[in-house]
C-alpha cells in the first residue's frame, strides 16, 4: 500500500498522450488501473510517469456500426456485462464478464486495459481470439488495425509499439446460428483461470460445427485450437477432438498445476463444451 513516487498527467486529447509517451523514462498508461495500481502498491512497478487516459473523450462505450460492434478501450468490464447490445450480438463476452475478478474491479477495469496487458490467464484476450476481433491502435502516425491472432505475441506482450495506444476493439457479429460457449476452471471464482475456454461456434443446418476454440491459461498467450477445429468441422466426435487437442496445446505447468494436468483439464472443458452445444435447443 505504499506506491513509489511518480509523476501523473491527465491529458484530455489523444495528441497530448502521444507527446507524453514520447518522453523519457518509464511512461505508463493508466486505464482502469486494476492491475497496474496493485503492482504499484507492492512496488513491483516503478514508472516515472503515469498517463491517466480515463478522461479522454471517445474511448469509452459500445456501439454497432458497419456490421461490427465497436467497444471503446476504456469501456469497463461491468458495462460489457450489463450491455444489452453485447448480450444480443456478442453473448460470448457477456458470458465471460462475470468470470473477471470481482464486481468492484469490474466497475473500474477496462476492456482495452486487459487486452493491452495480455495476461495469458485473462478472459478478454481469449474471447477476442475466438471472435476474430480487430484491435484498433492509434499513434501520431494515425490508426492501424491488428487482428487478434497477431496481437498477442507472448507473455504480457502485444503487437503494440512504443507510442501507440489501443483505442478500440472491433468485432464482427458472428454468423446467424453461431453460438458461444465460455467456461473456466479457477481455484476460486474470480481467481485467474487455471484453464479456460472461450468458443464461438458456427453451426450449419445439418448440425455440423465449425468452432473457434480459444484456450487460455495454457501458455504464454491464448491459443486457438486449429487442429481440433478441423477435426470437429470434419465431423469428429468428442473423443477425437479431445485427442487432437494435444496437437494444439502444450501447456506449461505452474506451482498449482502441472502442464499435463492442464492439458487434461482443457480436454475436459472441450468435451463438456461439445456436449453442451449438442444439447442446446437454441443451437
Amino acid at each position, binding site marked *: 500500500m505504499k506506491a513509489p*513516487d511518480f509523476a501523473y498527467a491527465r491529458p484530455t486529447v489523444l495528441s497530448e498522450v502521444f507527446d507524453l509517451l514520447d518522453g523519457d523514462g518509464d511512461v505508463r498508461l493508466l486505464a482502469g488501473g486494476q492491475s497496474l495500481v496493485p503492482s504499484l502498491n507492492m512496488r513491483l512497478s516503478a514508472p516515472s510517469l503515469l498517463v491517466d487516459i480515463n478522461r479522454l473523450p471517445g474511448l469509452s462505450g459500445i456501439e454497432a456500426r458497419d456490421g461490427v460492434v465497436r467497444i471503446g478501450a476504456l469501456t469497463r468490464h461491468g458495462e460489457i456485462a450489463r450491455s444489452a447490445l453485447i448480450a444480443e450480438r456478442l453473448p460470448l463476452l457477456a458470458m465471460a464478464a462475470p468470470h473477471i475478478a470481482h464486481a468492484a474491479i469490474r466497475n473500474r477495469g477496462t476492456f482495452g486495459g486487459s487486452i493491452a496487458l495480455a495476461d495469458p490467464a485473462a478472459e478478454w484476450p481469449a474471447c477476442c481470439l475466438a471472435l476474430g476481433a480487430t484491435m484498433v491502435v492509434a499513434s501520431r502516425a494515425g490508426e492501424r488495425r491488428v487482428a487478434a491472432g497477431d496481437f498477442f505475441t507472448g507473455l504480457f506482450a502485444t503487437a503494440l509499439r512504443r507510442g501507440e495506444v489501443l483505442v478500440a476493439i472491433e468485432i464482427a457479429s458472428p454468423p446467424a446460428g453461431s453460438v458461444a460457449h465460455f467456461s473456466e476452471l479457477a*481455484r*476460486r471464482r474470480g*481467481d485467474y483461470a487455471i484453464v479456460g475456454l472461450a468458443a464461438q461456434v458456427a453451426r450449419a443446418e445439418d448440425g455440423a460445427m465449425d468452432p473457434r476454440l480459444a484456450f487460455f491459461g495454457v501458455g504464454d498467450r491464448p491459443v486457438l485450437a486449429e487442429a481440433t477445429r478441423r477435426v470437429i468441422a470434419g465431423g469428429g466426435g468428442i473423443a477425437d477432438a479431445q485427442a487432437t487437442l494435444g496437437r494444439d496445446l502444450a501447456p506449461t505447468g505452474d506451482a*498449482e498445476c502441472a502442464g499435463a*494436468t492442464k492439458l487434461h*483439464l482443457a480436454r475436459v472443458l472441450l468435451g463438456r463444451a461439445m456436449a453442451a452445444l449438442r444439447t442446446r435447443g437454441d443451437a
Partner: protein
Amino acid sequence: MGNVKIGERVQRKEDRRFLTGSGRYVDDLQLARVTYAYFLRSPHAHAKIRKIDTSKAAASVGVVQIFTGKDVAEAKVGGLICGWVVKDKHGNPHKAPAHPAMAADTVRHVGDTVAMVIAATADQARDAAEKIEVDYEVLPAQINLAGALDPKAPQVHADAPGNLCYDWELGDKAAVDAAFAKAAHVTKLDLVNNRLVPNAMEPRAAAAEYDRGTGNYTLYTTSQNPHVARLVLSAFVLGIPEHKLRVIAPDVGGGFGSKIFIYPEETMLTWAAGKIGRSIKWTAERSESFMTDAHGRDHVTHAELALDAKGKILAFKVDTIANLGAYLSTFATAVPTYLYATLLAGQYTTPVIYCNVRAAFTHTTPVDAYRGAGRPEATYVVESIVSKAAREMKIDSAELRRRNYIAKDAFPYQTPVALTYDSGNYAPILDQAMKLADYAGIDARKAAAKAKGKLRGIGVCSYIEACGIAPSAVVGSLGAGVGLWESAQLKFNPTGNLQILTGSHSHGQGHETTFAQIVSDKLGIPLDQIEVVHGDTDKVPFGMGTYGSRSLPVGGSAIMKAADKIIAKGKKVAAHLMEAAEADIVFENGTFKVTGTDKAVPLGQAVFAAYVPHNYPADLEPGMDENAFYDPSNFTYPSGTQICEVEVDPDTGVVDIVNFVAVDDFGNIVNPMVVEGQVHGGIVQGVGQALLENAAYDEKTGQLISGSYMDYTMPRADDVPSFKLGYEVTPCPHNPLGVKGCGEAGAIAAPAAVMNAVRDALAAVGAQDRIEMPATPQRVWAAINAH
C-alpha cells in the same frame, strides 16, 4: 435496551460503531507529531549480514532515524521470549535459542527484521528503506520439515544441534506396545497437517508514544492480551517497569491466536519511541503479515491404532514432528505438546496412548497457536485414523465411534493422557448430527451422484477439546510461565450504571454484549446501563486475555464472582436501609427484599447509598466496586460431532461441499446468536485448511509462495455452504455459568470432517489414502489418477 437473560439472542452492543465506520482500530489512531516506521526485511531464508550501509537511506527525504540490529544489541534490548518451558523425555528443558528483536548478524527466515526506518510518512519510510544496502552472505537453508532433523541438514541455531528443540513424550509406551501385540486389527496412517497463515482481516499494527515529562510509555497494539504484552516487554525485553508502560489494545480486527504473541515490531516501536522522543506508528502490509504473523499447524505424523475384532480401540500411538519455524514464538513450545498430545483420547475410551513429539527449527516463519492450537492437529489424527479403521474393518464409521465413546455416566473421566474430562454426553450428539445430515440416505445420494459421473462422500468427526485455559497450578506444573486465571471488576457509578472491567479482550467475540448480558441477568440491570471496558492496562485489572476459548468460562466466571461480591455487599447495605437482619435479605431481579415482607430496596438505591453513605452501616466501606480473580479448577471440555458431505468431480478434482452439519455441546449458552457465529467462522477456517489454504514455501529459496491473497486461497463466500447447527447441553460442573467455550470448535473439527468425506468419496475409486490437505482439485485429480 432493557434487562436481558442468559440464553437470549441479544443483538450486539458493539455493532453500531462497526457498522457506521466508527470503530477505532490501531491504524485509525491519529497521534500528534507522529512518525512512521518501515521494517526492512530479509529477502533470504538464511544469511549472514556482513554489512549494512544506511548512509543513503539516512539522507532520504523525511527520514528521522534508522536503527539496525547492531543498535538494538548495543542498547542491550533483550530478546523475545518463549513463555512455556517444555521438558524433553530426559527431563531437560527445551532448547531456547536467542530471538533478537532485530537480526544483528544472521537472518533466519524470509521476513526477518533487519532495519527499522522512521520517517515523517509511511511512504517516505519505505522509500528510504529501499536505499539501505545490506551485504548478505547467503547460507544454505532448511525449509521443509521433512529432513529438518537430518544430521546433515543446514543448522538454524548453533545451540540447537540437529535443529531439535525437544524430543518429548507422553503416555505409557510399554503398555501401548503390549496392547498392540494383542490387537485383532491395526490401522496405520501417515498425515501432513498443513501450515496455515491465520490471516485476521486487520493486519497487525502498533503505535508507541513516550512522554518525556513522566517517563511513561504507551503502546497501542493489536493484541489479544495487553497485560501479557506489557509483562513480557517489561520484565524480559525492554526493562521498562510495568507501571511505566501502558498497553492499549483498542478495537482489534480478529486474532485467531496470531495476536497473542509479542512480536519484534511492537517491541522496536516502544523502544525507539523512547529513543527519538516522538510517537511512531506501524501497520503491516498484508505481504508482511504473511511473512511475519506466527503461522499455525505444520505437523508430519505417523499414527497407529490397535482395535479388537469388534472395533473397540485398545491402544493408540502417535509419532509427530512439529515445525516451530526459525525462532520460538511466545507459546510455541506448548502447542504441539500439552495442547496436542493430551487430546489424543478424543471422545473414546482408548485405555493406553503413547505420543512422541519432536519439534524442529527450520528457516521459516515462526509457528505458534492458531485457532484451536494443537487440538485441531490432535483431532485430525484421531478422527482420520478412526474413519480409516472403520473402512478397513468394514464397520460404519459412525458406529465405530459410538462403540468407543466414553459413556455419559463415566464422568469425571480420567484419560491416559493427563486430562480429566469433566462432563459430556456424546451419543445423542452423534444421533442429532446424523439426523440433520440424513446420514441414512447417503447410499442413495451416492448412487445418484454416480449416475451423473460424480463421487459422493460423507465424513464424520467427533471432537473433544480442552479449553477455558486454565488452572494455573496445572499449567504451571506443565511449564507455563504465567498463571491462567482471569480478572474482573464491577464498578458501579453513584447513578446506578455499571462498568465491567475485564481482563479478557474482545476482537470479534462480542464480549461487550455477552459479558453485559450475564451481568444484566445476574444483577437485573438494563443492558444499556452496562458498559464493558477492556484492552487497556491502565483501566482494567491485570488480566490474561483471550485465547483458548477461555473468555466466558474463565473471564465470565470472574465477572460472576465479582457480581456475587456486589450482591453480598448490597445485602449489607439493604439490610441497614430496611433495618433488617442481613440473613433475611434475598436478592431477586435487581432488588433486595426482606423475606416474608414486602420491604424492598432496588440495587440502584443500595449503590447510591454506598456512594452517598449518609445512612450507612458503620462497619462497611463506602463504594460499590468489586474485584474478582477466577482460577478454574479444570479445563472445560466442549465436544461435538460434525458431518460433512461432499461431491467430487473426478474429471477436474473439484470438491464441492453439499452439506455441513455441526452439533456441539458448549455447556450452557449465553447468547445463541453469538455462539452460532463462532461456530460458522470456525468451520470455514477448518474448511479452508482442508480444501484451500496452504502456506507453501519454495524449498530452495524459502520464499513463501502463497504470500498474498491472490495465492493463499482463503475461503470466500461461494466456497462454502450455509450450515446446519444443533446443540446438546451438559453444563460444565465447575464454573458458575456452566459454560465450556465455543470459539475453536469449528476449526478443530472441520478439517477431519471434510477430509473424511473426501476420502469416503475417493474410496469408490481406491484413492482414499492418497490425499492430503489441502485437497485442491489438482491433488484430488492426481490422487484419482495415480495408478
